């Protein structure tokens, strides 16, 4: 139970993907102008992250490591992720066209989202995971749990950011500051707020 809480807190707050690890910044800056699209992107990223971990972790641990070609992990991971995203897109298109219209449009962007490759690389890195596990041994359950809550943390910050940017639309900004600079200064304030969570001792 302690490990469970530690992983959840670490993934969502203390080691948030955007505010602490700075993974997945492209969609964070690009798709956060409206809350609805930010939510769609966040959910899509979470789903792909969980699916990607579900496949890459066992492939790495039980196939690539024993056969000693773990040095090819980058190529394998990016291919698995690309294939997963393609399949997911087709499946959603077939099963639920309405869901496809709201979420599907974000899927092609996700292949080159570093949050997905980032989580796949993180969970196979013993040193990184050890600090969250509080003594428990690593297995696929923890890996998937971590990626799911990392996705939720990503979604949380996306929604906060989009809410702030929607308000910012009402104000006139100097020409040089319009667009990315304003978004980044806003993001900086969100990061400062999230720094509070580093005081959580698990």
């Amino acid at each position, binding site marked *: 139970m302690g490990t469970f809480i530690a992983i959840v807190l670490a993934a969502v707050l203390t080691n948030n993907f955007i505010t602490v690890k700075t993974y*997945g910044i*492209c969609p964070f800056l690009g798709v956060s102008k409206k809350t609805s699209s930010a939510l769609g992107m966040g959910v899509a990223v979470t789903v792909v992250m969980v699916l990607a971990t579900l496949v890459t972790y066992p492939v790495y641990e039980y196939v690539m490591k024993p056969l000693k070609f773990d040095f090819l992990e980058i*190529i394998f991971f990016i291919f698995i992720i690309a294939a997963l995203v393609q399949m997911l897109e087709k499946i959603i298109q077939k099963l639920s066209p309405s869901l496809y219209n709201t979420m599907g449009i974000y899927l092609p962007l996700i292949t080159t989202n*570093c949050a997905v490759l980032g989580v796949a690389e993180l969970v196979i890195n013993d040193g990184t995971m050890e600090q969250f596990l509080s003594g428990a041994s690593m297995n696929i359950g923890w890996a998937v749990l971590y990626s799911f809550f990392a996705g939720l943390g990503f979604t949380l910050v996306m929604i906060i950011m989009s809410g702030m940017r929607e308000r910012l639309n009402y104000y006139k900004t100097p020409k040089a500051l319009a667009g990315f600079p304003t978004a980044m200064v806003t993001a900086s304030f969100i990061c*400062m707020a999230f*720094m509070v969570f580093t005081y959580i001792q698990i």
Partner: protein
Amino acid sequence: MNKYKKITLDGLIFQNPTFMLVLGTCPTLGLISSATSAAGMGLTVVVILTLSNIIISALKKLIPNEVRIPCYIVVIATLVTFARMLLEKFVPDLYESLGGFLALIVVNCIILGRAEAFANKHTVLESAVDGIANGLGFTCALTIMGIICEFIGNGSVFGLHVMDFKIGMFATPAGSFLVYGISIAVFVYVINLFERAKRVKVNRLARENLLDKEVA
């Protein structure tokens, strides 16, 4: 020769991937807290970007249009894996300071972006120049911001102690976001000034020409 000058200037300044196009943001924000790791990341990207541009423009006739993106990704992933091996073997300190961002070069939009937008339409030489120019543009931007962040956040430059005063926030992502945002604003402002001055000069020349004609 003019063609190469334009490619170089575009990559370094007018289409600077970091400041003007805002690509490759994840490693930028993650690594500019230290000037050394920022410069190391930049130089790694220069090499990988140049090589991937050369290979992709050389193979552009061979690769069918339908599977070009997967092919690019394979080429880039191979280069990244190779670069990672080299760094781990010969520069272990840099390898450790880059951490996870080394593997994430694969999904760095700059590299895939240049492959898609430039390398598959141009010759090998032009692509190589474009790769070096864009890579250096990225490196310069990262190094400048790295120096700023490290100086304020850690009181040092490239790891050398400069002053005791420091604001720790600038060594965290919060400071990275702030410095990056303000850097973009300053860069865009300067470029706009420069372009306006150029436009004013062009207009003045045109007017003088017109006047000369009328006088004549």
